[in-house]
């Protein structure tokens, strides 16, 4: 459940960002080239998931896998949590899809030709780079928990849901609580990563996987303390 949830939420957030780029390109320069770019990026990402997923599941011993991937997930999750804390405290601005959309549109000046390489490249780059984080989340969470198909299903479902909504509304999904989602995914990934990394180090947890909830509570509590400390006015 947690594997599916982490893969779904993480993929949904990144898919929203990728959708903004594709929409910006498609609505300003025509759909043909950006859709080709998106397709090439998705096929490349699927190949990466297949190769790395298989390598990880079949070649790496379980404790080594937990230690290395757990450590990487901790670093990845802490980075998201760090940004989420700074956003919650108002130190850095909240991610704004409307602004990202406007920036991408302003990057693309000039009329589109039949074979529009700019549209193709921007869509390919946007989807591939945003999708790379999805690949990491899916392979790391799925590979370490032994539930790669579940994680892949979570990632795919998120992408399909976001793409379907994008197809219907045809504008950036600014109402998705992206920052809250990133905060939640940051807590979940950091907790799962710490759980697996510590298991890879040779320790055991009380109540086994239930401990992830306790770990999550500690990280969430720490993040709220950080937000509170940052918001507190500094005495003159």
């Amino acid at each position: 459940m947690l594997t599916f949830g982490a893969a779904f939420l993480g993929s949904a957030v990144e898919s929203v960002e990728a959708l903004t780029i594709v929409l910006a390109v498609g609505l300003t320069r025509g759909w043909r080239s950006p859709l080709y770019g998106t397709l090439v990026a998705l096929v490349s990402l699927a190949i990466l998931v297949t190769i790395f997923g298989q390598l990880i599941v079949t070649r790496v011993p379980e404790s080594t896998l937990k230690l290395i991937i757990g450590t990487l997930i901790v670093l990845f999750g802490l980075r998201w949590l760090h940004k989420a804390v700074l956003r919650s405290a108002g130190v850095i601005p909240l991610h704004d899809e409307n602004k990202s959309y406007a920036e991408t549109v302003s990057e693309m000046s000039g009329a589109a030709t039949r074979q529009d390489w700019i549209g193709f490249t921007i869509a390919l780059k946007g989807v591939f780079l945003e999708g790379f984080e999805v690949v990491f989340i899916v392979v790391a969470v799925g590979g370490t928990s032994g539930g790669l198909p579940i994680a892949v299903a979570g990632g795919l479902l998120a992408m399909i849901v976001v793409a379907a909504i994008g197809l219907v509304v045809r504008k950036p999904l600014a109402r998705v609580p992206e920052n809250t989602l990133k905060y939640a995914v940051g807590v979940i990934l950091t907790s799962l990563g710490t759980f697996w990394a510590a298991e890879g180090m040779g320790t055991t947890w009380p109540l086994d996987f239930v401990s992830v909830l306790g770990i999550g509570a500690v990280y969430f509590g720490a993040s709220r303390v950080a937000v509170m400390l940052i918001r507190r006015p500094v005495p003159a």
Partner: protein
Amino acid sequence: MKFIRAAATEVVGLFVGDWLQTIVSIAILGFGWLVLSRIHVDGLGFVVVVALAVQLIYATTLEARDRVRRS
């Protein structure tokens, strides 16, 4: 070439926001590995959790103060 460079930056950026914070996090995990691989006590992993949580508080408040000072 630009695309490859952007992809490489993206890969590193997945795990590293601030180098100091990353080094401290790896040091905590490394120290945790030394301890946890030798002392097998149920729940000792929570020491690593608390250390990483404290590190998160310290790193975020430090960055916030730094940004306020610069602005």
